């Protein structure tokens, strides 16, 4: 301490030190300060006409802070008279500096004193005085970053991290104080030198800032349908990617976690499904950059984004809000903006959690154990003997089944390949904002082990968001977000040929996992069943490593000129490369192929570069009661992607896994590109805050369409009427605001692949003279008329705010009409082609959405907010061009879903189950298949022709729910907070296609426990659903019986988080929480995850929704976490 003082004395005598010296000293001081014991944070001072340097010394000794000044600057100091008791440092300083011709700034623990630069006196204005102020909220918390302006003047200042500001102003002027989320305040200055200002919180719902395309708006000024996610209510949800956190948050946005694969894809639909040939995924825009969506079971482009980096998410739902995104807006747009440092912010934030994921017992399909399976085999033999009219001979029972009870539970293969799994996240953010430079850096690490052995997802992410005011009115910025992720993947889902989960369900429960010597049992099966490989061995030793590096980068510059104009230019790039390496050793084998099998391996590399150049000009002007904002801009976006992959067999051994060891190698490559040119504009006009009008127009040119159909125009108009501002509207304290909105617009869909209109010549080789003869042929019928799929959408809405924002209701009706739907239509093969992509057909989605937000409690110690949303969507196909129907057969040749005019897209399709034939007489008197015997399924003769055949297939169920809803409750009591997120769906169905295997009655697989209740005889008919094992068992699986359609209504507790915030001296925020996700699932559905859907590799979800074919289980997560801000 003495040392530092002497340094100061030395320094004080030096008039102008070199900057480097200054910096060194500051640095040195910082180091020394670290070792100094803590000082009081409050100051007690009593002085009368004291020299200012005396006062400084006193403050130094009480606070441990150091003053740093030049004598020259304090030469004109006035003597200080002050009396303070236990005052905070800031207050002490403010009072000391009152009226002094210098001011101060705190840098770390140094108080830097500098002269107030006074402008040359203007003879036309009265003398300005320097005012210091402190801005706090109602609870006494200082507010940093509050904008302070002198009314009528341009320029101004903002409060620092301690809520302090200094400004020079005419004492007669008014201070105009504004801050987002708080009521604007005008404060007269008078003869005060120190002004304490308390800002009142504003009606948050009305003034919530909503991010829209190319800008943002306050909710009160919205005329279109935009859902903004309340980040506070999703921050607690622990997921790999942010789209998973959205479930239940917004009306009209359905988020289905169709797979539990770590880092895997999510099915998000905004206001229903509307496309058969182009995708239904919404467009994602991250920090203004539209990223290319490519979702499947294992990958999700959003998963490279650290959810802790996200500042806001909004979903553009109607065409009036999406039309500004033109050709890509038809399925809705999800806008994600990442965090930036705020002016005056200086913080270090650490978020971390560790959780354990476990599969709910309810989500597991109940298969027979070893004893039950043996019993089932014995009974089947007895039933067959009886059916054949022979005497049952126990000696015909294979020895291993003869004594079921001795077998006990046997092996539960599903449990053997699954595990409770850890998930952890660390994210550290350093934010620093000054009026000149705002910077935010995040480093994140996320590690999710999968519930299936040898599956995981890891993400290492960095982010730098920097923004600087380089010269007056010019802001430049950079967002840079590199991330690296790795995945271990297994073939988990679907058909038993590849899906280890299905294999595990079907494997005989009798053989053990390991032999007595500890090695893997390599032949899994028992008498009569298929002999399979060992699924545990398979998942543990099959290698499928994927790694990806991705950087999303944006640089921008904006220039505010002539007060009302702003020009902004942005260049962004999304670069990604990824590698996939696989190896299947010879000792792994496959289902029905026990090892040894030939080892095989592959390696693949992909990269893509997507860049965007975007330029906008914004004009905003207010005059009188009018306000006008005009936006115009153009952009160029371009993507090039490359892929190479090689596959090899003939590995001499299982030691070297890389492809160089293979003796047979085949390779392939892919290369694609697309470009998009766009012009767009928007006008927002408001009169007296009562009448709101907006219109937008975008023109897009896409390389994906035929030259004559390349350009599309997407206009929209919307209007709002704030009736509550009208003079005739009754004055009431009940209603704060009532607003009606209506909008209509067009948006497009160009998600059809890159060269669909071109007749493609592909290689079609042949052989002559025993060597390859290169050949070619047209593989695609060109379509020179291929054009946009266009969605017209009408939206009518009402916003109602009651009781000073305690109740806020948004109600909306929409009619979304998709025209010229892009679809692959079937061609007669006599043309030489089997299908072509064309514009065909129309689909309508319409419905209602309601969002109700209430502040049930708003006490000092106790707050309780509830947000409820509910959506009703109805989907109908109005036309399919010249096709009668589109049958979708995602796995087998038989269609599971059918799309017909007049019905919703992708209805379930199959045969209507009409009971079990009790006896021969019933068979003889009813339509039936050849050779049916009593105990087999009776199907309904739908067309009444007396014969059961493929023409008797019909719609057997509707996958879509009547409504979906979300309910969020957020409570806080003193230092505790509790967040509960629920989501539900009512009236939808799933199609249990997996039962084709799990209720196979031939004895080749293990079966579900419900098979116990199959039909055995007329006297013992069981549950009346599953037929006899004697004959025609294929009727219960190769034809799809209507009893596979099951209701999947559910209520899920997506998240329950309980937190406690500690008040500490060292931190601004220190919160510890416990969280449980998906821990409670209320449903009658027994097939596992009620949101399941086939993985996307098998095709378009919208044509075959709701098929449960066994997917990666979605688990419950129990986590403990910490949020710490310094």
């Amino acid at each position, binding site marked *: 301490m003495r040392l530092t003082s002497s340094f100061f004395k030395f320094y004080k005598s030096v008039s102008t030190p070199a900057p480097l010296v200054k910096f060194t000293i500051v640095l040195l001081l910082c180091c020394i300060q670290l070792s100094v014991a803590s000082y009081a944070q409050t100051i007690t001072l009593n002085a009368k006409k004291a020299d200012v340097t005396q006062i400084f010394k006193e403050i130094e000794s009480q606070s441990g802070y150091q003053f740093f000044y030049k004598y020259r600057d304090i030469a004109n100091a006035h003597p200080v008279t002050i009396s303070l008791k236990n005052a905070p440092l800031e207050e002490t300083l403010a009072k000391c500096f009152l009226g002094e011709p210098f001011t101060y700034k705190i840098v770390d623990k140094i108080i830097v004193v500098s002269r107030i630069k006074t402008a040359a006196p203007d003879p036309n204005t009265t003398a300005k005085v320097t005012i210091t102020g402190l801005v706090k909220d109602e609870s006494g918390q200082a507010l940093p970053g509050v904008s302070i302006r002198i009314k009528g003047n341009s320029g101004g200042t903002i409060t620092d991290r301690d809520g302090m500001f200094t400004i020079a102003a005419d004492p007669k002027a008014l201070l105009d104080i504004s801050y987002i989320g708080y009521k604007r305040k005008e404060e007269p200055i008078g003869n005060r030198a120190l002004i304490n200002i308390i800002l009142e919180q504003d009606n948050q719902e009305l003034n919530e800032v909503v991010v829209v395309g190319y800008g943002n708006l306050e909710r009160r000024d919205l005329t279109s349908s935009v859902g903004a996610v309340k980040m506070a209510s999703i921050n607690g949800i622990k997921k790999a990617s942010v789209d998973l956190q959205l479930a239940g948050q917004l009306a009209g946005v359905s988020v289905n976690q169709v797979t539990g694969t770590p880092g895997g894809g999510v099915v998000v639909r905004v206001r229903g499904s509307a496309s058969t040939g182009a995708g239904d995924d919404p467009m994602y825009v991250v920090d203004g950059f539209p990223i290319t969506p490519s979702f499947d079971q294992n990958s999700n482009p959003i998963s490279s984004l650290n959810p802790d980096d996200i500042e806001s998410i909004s979903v553009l739902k109607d065409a009036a809000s999406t039309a500004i995104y033109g050709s890509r807006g038809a399925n809705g747009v999800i806008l994600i903006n990442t965090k930036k440092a705020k002016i005056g912010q200086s913080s270090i934030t650490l978020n971390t959690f560790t959780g354990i994921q476990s599969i709910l017992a309810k989500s597991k399909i109940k298969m027979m154990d070893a004893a039950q399976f043996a019993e089932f085999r014995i009974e089947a033999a007895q039933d067959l003997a009886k059916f054949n009219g022979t005497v049952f001979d126990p000696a015909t029972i294979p020895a291993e089944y003869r004594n079921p009870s001795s077998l006990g539970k046997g092996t539960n293969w599903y449990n053997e390949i699954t595990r409770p799994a850890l998930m952890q996240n660390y994210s550290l953010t350093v934010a620093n904002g000054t009026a000149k430079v705002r910077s935010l850096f995040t480093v994140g690490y996320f590690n999710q082990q999968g519930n299936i052995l040898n599956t995981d997802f890891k993400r290492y992410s960095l982010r730098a968001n920097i923004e600087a005011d380089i010269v007056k009115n010019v802001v430049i910025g950079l967002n840079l977000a590199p991330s690296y992720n790795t995945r271990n993947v297994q073939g988990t889902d679907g058909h038993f040929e590849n899906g280890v989960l299905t294999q595990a369900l079907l494997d005989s429960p009798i053989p053990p996992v390991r032999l007595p010597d500890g090695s893997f049992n390599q032949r899994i099966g028992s008498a009569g069943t298929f002999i399979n490989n060992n699924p545990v061995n398979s998942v543990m030793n099959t290698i499928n490593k994927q790694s990806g590096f991705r950087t999303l980068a944006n640089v921008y510059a904006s220039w505010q000129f002539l007060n009302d104009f702003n020009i902004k230019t942005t260049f962004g790039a999304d670069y990604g490369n990824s590698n996939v390496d696989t190896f299947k050793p010879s000792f792994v084998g496959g289902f029905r192929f026990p090892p040894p099998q030939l080892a095989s391996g592959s390696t693949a590399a992909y990269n893509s570069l997507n860049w965007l150049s975007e330029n906008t000009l914004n004009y905003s002007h207010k005059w009188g009661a009018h306000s006008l904002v005009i936006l115009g801009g153009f952009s160029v976006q371009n993507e090039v992607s490359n892929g190479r992959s090689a596959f090899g067999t003939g590995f001499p051994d299982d030691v070297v896994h890389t492809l160089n060891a293979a003796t047979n190698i085949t390779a392939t490559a892919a290369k694609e590109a697309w470009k998009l040119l766009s012009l767009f504009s928007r006008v927002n006009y408001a009169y007296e805050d009562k009448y709101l009008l907006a219109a937008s127009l975008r023109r897009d040119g896409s390389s994906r369409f035929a030259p004559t159909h390349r350009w599309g125009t997407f206009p929209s108009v919307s209007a709002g009427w704030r009736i509550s501002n009208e003079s005739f509207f009754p004055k009431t304290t009940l209603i704060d605001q009532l607003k009606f909105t209506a909008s209509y617009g067009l948006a497009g869909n160009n998600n059809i692949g890159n060269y669909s209109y071109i007749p493609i010549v592909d290689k079609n080789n042949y052989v002559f003279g025993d060597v390859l003869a*290169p050949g*070619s042929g047209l593989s695609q019928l060109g379509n020179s008329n291929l054009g946009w799929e266009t969605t017209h959408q009408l939206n009518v809405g009402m916003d109602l705010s009651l009781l000073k924002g305690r109740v806020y209701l948004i109600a909306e009706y929409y009619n979304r009409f998709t025209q010229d739907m892009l679809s692959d239509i079937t061609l007669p093969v006599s043309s030489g082609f089997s299908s072509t992509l064309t514009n065909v057909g129309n689909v309508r989605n319409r419905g209602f959405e309601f969002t109700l937000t209430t502040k049930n409690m708003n006490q000092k110690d106790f707050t309780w907010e509830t947000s409820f949303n509910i959506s009703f969507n109805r989907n109908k196909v109005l036309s399919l061009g010249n096709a009668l129907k589109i049958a979708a057969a995602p796995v087998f040749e038989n269609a599971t879903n059918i799309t017909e005019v007049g019905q919703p897209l992708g209805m379930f399709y199959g045969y209507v189950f009409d009971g079990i034939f009790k006896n021969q007489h019933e068979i003889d008197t009813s339509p039936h298949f050849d050779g049916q015997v009593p105990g087999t399924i009776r199907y309904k003769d739908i067309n009444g022709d007396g014969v059961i055949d493929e023409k008797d297939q019909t719609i057997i169920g509707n996958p879509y729910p009547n409504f979906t809803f979300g309910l969020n409750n957020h409570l806080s009591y003193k230092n505790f907070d509790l967040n509960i997120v629920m989501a539900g769906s009512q009236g939808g169905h799933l199609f249990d296609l997996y039962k084709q295997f799990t209720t196979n009655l031939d004895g080749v697989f293990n079966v579900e426990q419900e098979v116990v209740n199959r039909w055995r005889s007329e006297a013992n008919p069981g549950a009346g659903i599953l037929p006899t094992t004697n004959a025609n068992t294929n009727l219960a699986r190769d034809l799809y019986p209507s009893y596979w359609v099951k209701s999947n209504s559910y209520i899920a507790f997506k998240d329950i988080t309980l937190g406690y915030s500690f008040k500490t001296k060292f931190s601004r925020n220190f919160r510890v929480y416990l969280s449980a996700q998906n821990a409670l699932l209320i449903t009658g559905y027994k097939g596992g995850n009620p949101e399941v859907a086939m993985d996307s590799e098998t095709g378009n979800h919208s044509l075959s929704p709701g098929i449960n074919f066994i997917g990666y289980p979605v688990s419950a997560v129990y986590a403990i976490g910490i949020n710490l801000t310094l």
Partner: protein
Amino acid sequence: MSKYIYIALITVLTFSGCKNYLNIEPEISQNGANYFKTKDQFLKAVNGAYAPLQDLFNGQFWEMGEMRSDNTSYQFNNQDNSGTLRQEIDEFREIDLSDETRSFFQSNYTGIGRCNVILTRLPKVVLNDTKATDMIAGQASFLRAYYYFNLVRMFGDVPLVLEEVTSKDQAIKINQRKPAADIYAAIIADATLAVDKLPEAYADSLKGRAGKGAARILLADVFLTLHKYDLAVLQLRPLLTSFYHLNANYADNFDTKKKNGPESIFEIQYMEGPNGLNSILADRFVPWDSPDGLITGFPIDHDAGNGWNIPTQDFLDAYEPGDLRRAASVGEDYISDATGKMVPYVKKYTSPHAVRGISGNNFPVYRYANVLLMLAECLNELGNSGEALQYLNQVRNRAGLAQFSNTNTSDLRKVILQERRMEFAFENQRWFDLLRTGTAVTVMTAHAVKERQIKSYLSQGAYNNIRLLYQYPQREINIQ
């Protein structure tokens, strides 16, 4: 300042250059709108027109042309129902939605589509090479005739498309079935043109292309099918004096080291290796429960894809004692673990290969033996059974069988049919032979009785309706 330059640049790009800026041609394939200009491109297109033959012969031809007949069936697999569609074809149970018959239908039309592109665009360009132009036109005409010949024999009335289809509307318009007679007229026109344009022979490096001989025997086969025996003979006789002759050893016809030998007139070309141009039949035709290495020398293991086209007992019983062809055609050395019974299997396409499922056997379509037996059939029908015997006995001699000397037309007709059955066993000729000779219903009805005695698992619908034509694919009817 640089900002303005940048903005100006982008603006220029946007407003003036956009027309070309948005044109992106695929790099990994060519744009068909600008293709087919040069000789090389047409030659490649011709090669591409052959390509569907590989799919046809690997895929459905043996199901619909051989297993349909009394020659072969399948090895029953009670553990697996994934081959139901093929079983249905064997037992005359397939429906109009069958994926197998639809695939056969489609593969032929894919080939026809490629020929149509060539024959539509060739007259519009000048290649300045008459020889090449003739060869291109000749091969495309031959292939189109052959594809239609397959379709008309399997399905009867089918759409007749003889020009390139370039739009969706045109594709819908041409989807109309035309009488079989119209199809035959088109086939005869194409094959006649092919006889005229094609060269007699090719250099070794081009072996496997259709030559004049292939066109002649195709045309003869068409006339024979239409019972125009005299016209058939006109095409067949020149082949007697051409360079074709019988291999001394019957098995040489299926030897991968002796492909496209002196007996071969037209055969489907396959090659072993990783290019996807291989035969898959060695593994298809092996018993599904056979042990490792029975045929191919490496693990097979149980596979639902195997155990097809298994020779029937009926067929084995038809061999005369001492027939040298038996050992080259059928493997009779495998005793099934499951049943303890011998399971015979087709041996013609089972030469050893390195990678499972990838073999290199060619598949014969027309051999010189067929010239002899077709000629025998025609001459017998034309009343010249004496000369007919001469050709029949050439084939019997090679098989190590005694000369046949009965000149009774009706007896000889039966003998020739029987001789064809054994000579062309598993070469997808049998079902067409039964159709052409009008014996399909009687032969198959008798065969069904024998099969029922052996196969307890046959459903009641099996062999109920011996249809001469396959059902027209429902998919095509559904498209308006």
